[in-house]
């Protein structure tokens, strides 16, 4: 029997954790717990990237893992925590539409992504190719999360977790993008979150809440 080397099994394990965390985020209502989940996802991503780097000898991936660790496990969650404290929306529970249905749609999306990824994974020469389907599923699940959420901060976390899924796709299919590009993407994400921070204050100043139902006035043809 063909047994995978230990590091490949570990990568598969982390890939599974990533997917599990994506589902957990889909169902989580408390904003603070959502940020914790996001940080955990970042940690799983950084760990799996480091293992790929170790297992394949692609040393530039260590940098990538370090960047993920600093940005997605410490910096971004810290910024989000601070924002929430300043905005004082900690206890903002969110009423989600029908969690079981969302979960079922999520499962359908995962099956769909696995099917979509099959022809590509077969072409890949990397040891991590089997995880490409999971990466795509993470992107799709974050997309679903953005659609189902009505509040500003969870939507942004959905957006960031989509970026996580994309990073995972990049490492699992190709051993990571060139460093310049990765740095550029990281910078964009960071600036994006800072701008959104400013933006949250503007929204709140204007509406006294971060509920996006206030932001549905602009319609076609009015």
């Amino acid at each position: 029997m063909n047994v995978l080397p230990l590091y490949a099994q570990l990568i598969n394990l982390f890939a599974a954790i990533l997917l599990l965390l994506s589902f957990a985020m889909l169902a989580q209502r408390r904003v603070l717990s959502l940020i914790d989940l996001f940080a955990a996802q970042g940690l799983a991503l950084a760990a799996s990237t480091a293992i790929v780097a170790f297992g394949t000898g692609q040393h530039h991936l260590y940098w990538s893992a370090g960047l993920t660790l600093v940005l997605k496990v410490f910096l971004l969650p810290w910024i989000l925590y601070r924002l929430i404290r300043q905005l004082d929306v900690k206890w903002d529970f969110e009423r989600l539409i029908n969690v079981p249905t969302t979960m079922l749609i999520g499962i359908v999306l995962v099956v769909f992504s696995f099917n979509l990824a099959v022809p590509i994974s077969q072409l890949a020469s990397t040891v991590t190719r089997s995880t490409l389907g999971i990466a795509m599923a993470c992107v799709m699940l974050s997309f679903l999360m953005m659609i189902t959420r009505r509040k500003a901060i969870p939507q942004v976390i959905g957006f960031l977790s989509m970026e996580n899924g994309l990073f995972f796709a990049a490492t699992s299919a190709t051993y990571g993008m060139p460093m310049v590009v990765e740095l550029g993407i990281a910078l964009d994400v960071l600036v994006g979150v800072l701008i959104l921070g400013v933006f949250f204050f503007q929204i709140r100043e204007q509406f006294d809440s971060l509920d996006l139902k206030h932001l549905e006035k602009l319609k076609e043809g009015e």
Partner: protein
Amino acid sequence: MIEILAVLGIPLAGGLVLALMGERDEAAIVNIVASFATFVAAAVLTARVVTDGPMLALDKLFFVDSFNVFLVALTAFVGFTTSIFSRPYMRIERERGHVNAARLRLYHSMYQLFNFTMLLALLTNNMGILWVALEAATLTTVLLVSLYRTPASLEAAWKYFILCGVGIAQALFGTILLFFAAEKLLGAGGGALLWTELDAVKGQLEPTVLSLAFVFLLVGYGTKVGLVPLHNWLPDAHAEGPTPVSAVLSGLLLNVALYAVVRCKVLVEGAIPTAFAKNLMMGFGLLSVVVAAFLLSRQKDIKRLFAYSSIEHMGIITFAFGMGGAIANFAGLLHMTVHSLTKSAIFFAVGHATQKCGTQAIDGIRGLITTSPVIGWGLMIGTLAILGMPPFGVFASEFLILTTAMREQPWATPFLLVALGIAFASVFSKVQPMAFGEPVEARLPHRPAMIPVFVHLAIVLMLGLWIPPFLAAWYRQAALLIG
């Protein structure tokens, strides 16, 4: 080399200087000077490329050929004229209390940084940097769209951020797939994302991966182009932001996003033998033209009206590039140029008209030609030009696209003709009373900057009657390049 650094360095430095110096009366002048310097640098770069041919610079990080150099020149030119228009416009906004000093500082700084991201996206040879630059362009303009901090502008900016953010994430996935396909041929180093390298080996790239990559890239960058059904952010962002921002969004951002799509299409066309990429682009383009044409008649806000008109024209250009071939590409490039010039000229005129009447509602703006002939005629002539009346340049390019469509894709012609007809009827019937109806009295505290409007329209008129030989040669070269 030095020219490229100047083209990118001046707006970047300008943005920093404007952020540091804060809001003073001179800020608008600095903005104009920086934009003018960028334009001069772009002109020098253009002259270099015209005489010496394509150039690669800085370890292949930048690449200039006849396709992007004309867009660089166009971007720098419209950036410059818009900065002239923005001076009196923003002064009036400030005096009316719509913006304060801190926001004007943000505005000027972001304006320069936006120009920087546009030029970076055009000049870079790296598909990854192209993505980064377009994402950065979204980030710089989000704060510009929400500059007035009204509920509507916040909503528009939020929509813009989320939709374009999600869209551009799809494009990132497409870029990853592209890298994935190329890495096997070019090795895992930085080379596998360089467009010139990819172009050299495009025949050997894996077709299945590239088809999938193109779907993601087209959907991703297509969101920024404003292709239907991904266009929802566009009218809101145009209507709620300050008018100079609407002008650069329509005149520059949409073009640059489309440029990204076309660069990807060249690679994909080379890799897959079927007409998959062509059909996809033609389909999206045609859908945008038809849907936008029907939505035009329902608009009550003048800036939304012209935003929908931008969607329509972007659809026409996407359709033209989708058809491909020397003539359609030539027409597409010409249409990109004239649309960009005409639409920004219209937004300049519309900006002053809305300030004069204190409203963006079409019903509230009447009799511009009586109260201020310059603005009135500027708007009227611009509208006629954008609707494709001869002898303006838009007519020439639309005519070329239509005749090529009749020959190569006859099924599409009725859709195009009907859509153009409907667009003409709805836009003309709305703008005509604005120019000629019973006047509404109001005066502007500063002299409006109308010279850019007429300069743009004069160029568009000239392009309709006579395309200078160097420009024609240039378009032809670029058209061959796109294939």
